[in-house]
Structures are given as structure tokens and as C-alpha cells.
């Protein structure tokens, strides 16, 4: 049995304390996620089309975040199984931006390299690399690279459909490079710096009362 995890003690009056895991997650979501308002009703998990493949339901993940169970959250496959269909988000009585929480958890896990499987982060990285290089996605390169690396055994069966895509003119073999690709990378690099600065500021600012 894993030892029950105890949430950090409340902030000493007038003092500083390190941010709780929940505060950290909330700070890494660009918009107001309303994560702290979760009432643990479970509507999210009940609505989710891929819930049966998840280690924890979204509700459990939110409870674990609140409990500060960082390791269990980071090692869970739940964020990676989210299909971003927003059914949970429109049904949530607290209007929590649930897919945004999942994205933030994915980004955190990728950054710390604590992912349950490398397939999904690899796909995201390959995709993002094409954006950095060309400014646009490159479907042929992306799928070919990804399947060769992770699902070589599925390739023979996919070959017929793949050839179909070629003969039906649905495959562009040359990636399109946008003119402003350097500018785009400058924008993205600046965004990275700003994102890191925001995470660091969590440790500098005095803790808000009752924030956790």
C-alpha cells in the first residue's frame, strides 16, 4: 500500500511557503481553469469516451492534484488518453476547463520527462519539430516517422490505404515552409521565457491566503 499523502500545511500567517502542487498546475494553465472549484461530482469521467483506457478518471486526477500526490498524477496516463472532445468541459457544473488541465499536465510531464509511455510525447515532439522547421505541419513525414518508430508491425496492413492516399492525390510530399518561420520561432522562444518566468514567480511571491 502506498503511504497516504498529506497535503502541505496552510501558509503561516505573513510568511511564505512553497506553492502547492495544485497552485503549480493552475499557474501553468494560461487561462483561468477554475480547477480549484472542483466538487468531485464525477460527471467528467462519466462523460469521457476514453475513460476506460485511463489509469484514473479526471475526477480522481483532480483529487490527487488537490492532495498534492505529484508522483501519482505525473505517472498517470490519464492526460495522455484525453481526446480533447470537450464533452466533460461542457457538462462540468463548475465550468472547469478540463482539457486545459490535461494539456498542462502533459506539458509538465514532458518537461520533467516523467511519462508513462513515450509514444504520445514522441508524436507531439515530432509534430512540434515540423512546426519549428516549416511553420506548418507535414502530414506524410509525421505519420511515416511515427509509425516506423512505434508501430512498424502495423505498417504492412496500412500500406494499401497508404498507397490509396498517394494515388488519390491526398499526400503532399513536400512540406510547405512559411516565409515568417524565423519570426515565428522568435515569438515562440519569447513565450517560453515568459512561461518559465511565471513558474519561477510562484516561488518568489508571498503565498496568497487560503489559495491552496
Amino acid at each position, binding site marked *: 500500500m502506498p503511504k497516504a499523502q498529506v497535503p502541505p500545511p496552510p501558509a503561516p500567517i505573513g510568511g511564505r511557503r512553497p506553492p502547492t502542487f495544485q497552485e503549480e498546475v493552475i499557474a501553468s494553465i494560461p487561462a483561468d481553469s477554475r480547477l480549484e472549484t472542483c466538487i468531485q461530482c464525477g460527471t467528467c469521467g462519466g462523460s469521457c*469516451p476514453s475513460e476506460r483506457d485511463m489509469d484514473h478518471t479526471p475526477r480522481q486526477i483532480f483529487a490527487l492534484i488537490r492532495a498534492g500526490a505529484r508522483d501519482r498524477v505525473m505517472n498517470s496516463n490519464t492526460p495522455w488518453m484525453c481526446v*480533447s472532445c470537450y464533452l466533460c468541459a*461542457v457538462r462540468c457544473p463548475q465550468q472547469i476547463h478540463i482539457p486545459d488541465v490535461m494539456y498542462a499536465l502533459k506539458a509538465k510531464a514532458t518537461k520533467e520527462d516523467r511519462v508513462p509511455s513515450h*509514444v504520445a510525447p514522441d508524436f507531439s*515532439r515530432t509534430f*512540434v519539430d515540423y512546426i519549428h522547421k516549416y511553420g506548418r505541419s507535414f502530414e506524410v513525414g509525421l505519420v511515416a516517422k511515427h509509425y516506423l518508430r512505434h508501430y512498424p508491425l*502495423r505498417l504492412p496492413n496500412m500500406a494499401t490505404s497508404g498507397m490509396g492516399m498517394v494515388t488519390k492525390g491526398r499526400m503532399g510530399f513536400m512540406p510547405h515552409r512559411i516565409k515568417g518561420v524565423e519570426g515565428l520561432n522568435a515569438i515562440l522562444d*519569447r*513565450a517560453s521565457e515568459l*512561461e518559465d518566468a511565471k513558474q519561477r514567480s510562484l516561488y518568489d511571491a508571498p503565498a496568497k491566503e487560503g489559495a491552496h
Partner: protein
Amino acid sequence: MAQYLYYPGCSMDGTGRAYHDSIEAVLPTLDIRLAELDDWNCCGATEYMGISPLRSQALVGRNLALAEKQKNGSNTLVAPCSACYVNLARTDSYVRESKELAATINEALAADGMSYTPGSIEVRHLLEIMIDDIGLDELGKHVTRPLKGLKLAPYMGCLVSRPDYDDRWQHREHPHALDQLLLTLGADVVEFSRRTDCCGGHMTQISPDTGLELIRRLIVAAERSGAHALVTVCPMCQMNVDFYQREMNHHYRENHHMPILFFTQLMGLAYGMSAKSLGIGREIISSREALANIGIEVPLTEEEEAELAAAAKPARRKRGDVSLPSPEPRQDEEALR
């Protein structure tokens, strides 16, 4: 004439070619002009947020900034792909909601001398333009070949009516916009319970078992509803249901055949345009049988022609075949009488 800014998205040159073809074909009929955004970049799909949430917003911010710079007459940015639409709409909505985020995004955009004023651009999906701006009356006026007898399952997918940042949709789980459009074209619209279910998105890449299950649910539901074909508004949904259908059949040892077409292709058919000009025939799961129900012929692709030609050739005698050649029975029985 209605004029809009247009964000085609990366699929339009490749996997979504048929969508591109059919949009180009129907626009003149409806007197719509789409001005493509200059030098737009990828919206990040469902991948960039999983690497860095803030960078993904800045990525979209560049497109919004370009749109603001380019707007002339129209401040509506139209996306035909549901994933592009939701990404553009998300950033637009968040920067309107949070001054702090708007400032951060603008600080990032300043690295390339760009900026975006929250609220200056309105992001909408192509389906919304058709239904709300053009209107069903106008869409119906141009119908010269009603699709009567063609049973269609309206598959809107998840990301048009959800998350619905601007409260434009009355029903986020069971919207009937696509039904209305198809009814206007004269088609028989079946009751399709999974109209806003997920196609699996990128799951076919990162967890095929999950993705194929979601695709199977859609196809089985469409079959049960008696549909000849699914109708979609998104190149990603089309790709998943079409390209991965064989893989799904293989995975479950089943034999489904459910073609999926873009709503603009059906508009074009109802407006009397040829199947070829609408990119019909580009789908992997052929819609030939489905469209034969209403007497529309789909031209053979080069691949199929080659297959037919190969089948028509008399089979060569196998090496080592010592049987005597038998005479062919005569085909023209009339002549014998």
C-alpha cells in the same frame, strides 16, 4: 457578396484535398469570397499544448495578429477544420477574458514586431457561416438536383459546438445545424445518436486501440441508423473514419464499409456539379455505391481503372499446366437462334 478571411489549415493541401476542392467549387454559386490569410502558420492541432500551453497560445496568436493586419471589410476569420477552429477560438476567447494573458501573448508577438488587439477578430467555422450568414433559404435556392433517397448521417464531430466559447450553440451535444443543411439539400437525414462523438483525434497515432474503438462506435452507429454515408465538417474526422477504417476492420476482424463525405461535397452534388470537380473519389472507402442510390456516377480513379484492366485480360496459362485449352462458350446467344 460575402467576404471573409480564410484560415485553411495544414490538411487542406494533403489529406483534406477533397474538402478543398469542394469548397472552391461551391463558393462562386453562393457568392462567397474567402481571402486566405498571408503566411499563416499551423494552429498546433492537439499536439502543441501538450508540449507547452503558453507557447501554443503564442503560436495561434501569430495567426490572429496576421488576421487583424489583413482584415479589410471583414473581421471574421473562417476555419473549415474543426481543430483549427477551436484552437483559434480558444486563444481569441482567452485573451479577451484575461488582460494578463493578452499582455503576455503580445509581449511574445512583439519578438517579431506583431500585436493582437483582443476582440478585433471573430473566429467562426465554415458550417456556421453557411447556416447563419448565408442561411438555409439561400442554400436551398441553388439546389438543382435534390439528394432525395440518399440517407445521410450528420456527423458534426466534437469541436464545432463544443466548447462553444461564445455561447453560439443552443445544443452542444445534439446540435441539428448539419441536419438542417442536409435536409435543405433534399437528402434523407437519419437520426444519428453519435453526432458529436469524438473520432479519436490523434489517438490513432498514440494509442491505436483507443482510436480504433472510437472509430468503430461511429461506424456501427451509422450502420444501425441505416445511413448510406456519414457527412463531416472536419478533415481530421474524415481522415480517421476513412483512412483508418480498413485498419479498424482488420483490428476487429469485421467488414464495415461506411464512406464519409464532406458537407460541401454534398452541397456541390445538390447544386448539380460533377462528382469529380468536388473531389469525390478521393476517399479510401469509396462512396460509389452510396451515391448510386441517387443515380450519381463516381468516375473511376486511375488506380481502379488499372485494376479493372488487369481483371479484363485473359489469365495467362500457368507454367506446367498441361490441360487442353477448352473452347469458350459463346456469349451471343441471340445470334445462335
